C-alpha cells in the first residue's frame, strides 16, 4: 500500500515510516501542511496519515480541501489532543478515523489497513465468508460448517466487524469504538472476555480455529 505520512516531528515520522516499510507498505513523508497537500493532490495514495497540528497548514483544513476537491482517499488523523470533541471535529472535517497520541504502532497499522480495506466496494456485501464460517448480515444468522451458531446481538456485531476485516488485525480499541461506540478505555479486560466467549461459540468443536489472538496487537479472523 502507498501511504502518505504528513507529520512534522521528524523522529516520529522516521520511526513510523520504517515500521510501515517493515510491514510491507510504501510510505512517503511530508514534514509540513503545504508539502503534504501538494503530495496528496498528486494522488496515488491508498491511505493518508495526517497529524492534526502541522506547520504552515493544519491537518483538518488539508483534509477538508481534499474532500472539497472530490478526493476521498481515506485519511487517519493523528492528534495529541485526543478528546472526544476533537475526534468529532476531525471526523467532521472529512477524516475517516482518529488516533490520539501517543499510540502503539500496532494500533496505527491495524487502523491504516482497515481504512484501505474500507475503500473496496465490498462494504455492501450481505454475506461474509471466512472458510467454513458464514455470517448473513440480513438474516442475522451465523453458521460454521453448515451448522447454525446462535449468537447474542452484541456477539453478532462483534463477529460481523471482525469478518468485515478478515485477514486484518483488529485492535481492542477498534472493537470498543466500532462495536460498542465507546471511546474510553475500560480498566478491566472486558473485550478479551467478550472475544473468548465468541471464540467458544464459533471455534470450539470445529477443527481449525478462525479467531486468532495477535500478541501485543489484537485479534484477527482468518
Amino acid at each position, binding site marked *: 500500500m502507498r501511504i502518505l505520512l504528513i507529520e512534522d516531528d521528524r523522529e516520529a515520522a522516521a520511526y513510523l515510516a520504517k515500521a510501515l516499510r517493515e510491514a510491507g507498505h510504501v510510505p512517503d513523508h511530508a514534514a509540513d501542511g503545504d508539502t503534504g497537500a501538494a503530495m496528496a493532490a498528486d494522488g496515488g495514495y491508498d491511505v493518508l496519515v495526517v497529524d492534526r497540528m502541522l506547520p504552515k497548514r493544519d491537518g483538518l483544513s488539508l483534509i477538508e480541501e481534499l474532500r472539497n476537491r472530490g478526493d476521498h482517499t481515506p485519511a487517519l488523523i493523528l492528534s495529541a489532543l485526543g478528546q*472526544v*470533541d476533537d475526534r*468529532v471535529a476531525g471526523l467532521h472535517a472529512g477524516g475517516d478515523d482518529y488516533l490520539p497520541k501517543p499510540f502503539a504502532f500496532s494500533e496505527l497499522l491495524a487502523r491504516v489497513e482497515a481504512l484501505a480495506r474500507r475503500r473496496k466496494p465490498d462494504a455492501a456485501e450481505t454475506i461474509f465468508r471466512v472458510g467454513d464460517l458464514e455470517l448473513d448480515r440480513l438474516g442475522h444468522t451465523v453458521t460454521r460448517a453448515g451448522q447454525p451458531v446462535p449468537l447474542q446481538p452484541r456477539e453478532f456485531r462483534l463477529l460481523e466487524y471482525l469478518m468485515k476485516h478478515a485477514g486484518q488485525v483488529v485492535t481492542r480499541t477498534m472493537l470498543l469504538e466500532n462495536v*460498542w461506540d465507546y471511546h474510553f478505555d475500560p480498566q*478491566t*479486560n472486558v473485550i478479551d472476555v467478550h472475544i473468548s466467549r465468541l471464540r467458544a461459540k464459533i471455534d470450539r468443536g470445529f477443527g481449525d480455529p478462525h479467531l486468532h489472538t495477535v500478541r501485543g496487537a489484537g485479534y484477527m479472523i482468518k
Partner: protein
Amino acid sequence: MTGLGKVVRTTAFKLSAIYIAVFSIFSVFFVLYISYSTNVLLNQQLRETIATELLGLSDQYRVGGLPAVVDVIEQRAHQPGASLYLVTDVSGRILAGNVTEVSSYVLSRSGTEPIVVRYARYSGDVGQRTAMVQVVRLQGGFLLLVGRDIGERDQFRQIVSRALVWALVLMIGLALLSYIFVSRRVLKRIDSLSATSRHIMLGDLSGRLEVTGSGDEFDRLAGALNAMLDRIERLIYGVKDVSDNIAHDLKTPLTRLRNRVEQALGARPDTDGYRAALEATIEESDQLIKTFNALLMIARIEAGSPDGATTEVDAAAIAHDVAELYEPVADVTGIDLVVEAPQPILIEASRELLSQGLANLVDNAIKHGAPADGEARRLRIAISAAREGDTLVLRVADNGPGVPPEDRERVLQRFVRLEKSRSQPGSGLGLSLVAAVARLHHGTIELGDGNPGLVVTMRLPLK
C-alpha cells in the same frame, strides 16, 4: 480639567444632566402654557368690560347728548379702580375724562377692535402706564375712548416668569442633590466592587465582594460575581492540586521506569533481559499515558467543555449497555451483575461520559469489592437507573467492604486511594472522573453505605 472631565464621564453626572434637561423642558413648557392661557382669558375679560361700557355710554349719548355722557364720565372717572374715559371734539380737544395724555394716533383709530396704548392720568403720573382702549366716533364728530389699565395683567405675567425662574433653580438644585446621592451612595458601591475585583485579580483569590443584604441589583451582581469567583478558585486550586499530585503520583512510576532501564543497561548484555526490561517499560509507559489521559479528561470536563456534544439519550439504555459490556467478565469471575432500569429515561447528556462514569463505578466495584481469600461471599453488583421526579438517579451498589464514612468525600479527589486498595492497579482517578461527569451534568454524586458495601449515587437533573 482632567478632574472635570472625569466628573463629566461618570454615570451619576450623565444621569443628573439628563434629568435636569428633561424636567427643565417640561416645566418651561408647563409655565408658558399656563401664562398663555391666563393671558387669553384676561384679555377676553378686558374686551368684554370695555365693550359693555362703550355700549352704555353710547346709549347715554343717544338719549342725553354730550352733557349726559360727560356727567357719567365725571362721575365714574373719580371712583377708585376706575376705567379710563376720554371724550374729545373733532379737533382733538379734551372735553372730559381721566386721561391727560394719549397719542392722537390712537384717537384716529376708532373702530371695533381694542388696542394697547401708553397713557398718563390726570394726577401727575411720572411713568406712562399701559392700557387697553377702544375708541368710537359718536354722532357729531365727538370721539369717545374707554379703556382698562392692564398693569395688573402685566404684574401677573411677572409673577409667572418669576415662578419659572424659581422652578428652574429648584430643578437644578434637585439635580445636584440627586447627583450627590447617586454618586455618593450608588456609584460608590460600584467603585468598591471594581476596587475589590482589582484586588482579587492581583492574586487574593479568597477575597469576595461585599453583599449588604439589601437584595438590590448590586447585591445580586455581587452574588453572581462571588459565585463566579468560587468557581474560578475551585478551578485554580484544581489545577494546583493536579500539579501537586502529578509531582507525586506521576514521578513515582517515571522513577520506576527510569530505574528499570538503567538497571537493564548496567547488566550484562542479554537479549532476554533486554526484552523483558523493554516490555516492562512499554507497559509502565502505557499506564502512565492512561493516567495522563484520565487527568486531562477530568480537567477538561471540570473546565466545562463537554467531550462530544450532549444529545438526548436514554439513561436506561446506557445502564443496560454498560452492564452488557461487563457481563462476560462478571460471568467468568463469579460476580452477580444485575441491572434495574425498566423504564426509558430520556436526558440531555453525553452518552460517552455517562457510560464511562458507570463503567468506572462497575470497575471499582469489581476491583475493590471482591471477596477476600476464604471469604464465603459472592460479589453482587447492581446498576440502576431510575427517575425520581425531575431527577435521574444512576446508582451502582455492591456488597463489598464499602468505604468508611470519613473517607467518602476524600476518595472523590484526584489520586486519592485508600490504603487497602493501594495494591490494586489503578490511578486513583476513577471516582474523580465520575464526580466531574456528575458536575458537568449539573448533578451531584454521593457515596453511601450499602450495609454492607458501597452505594454510589449520581443524581442528575432531567431539565
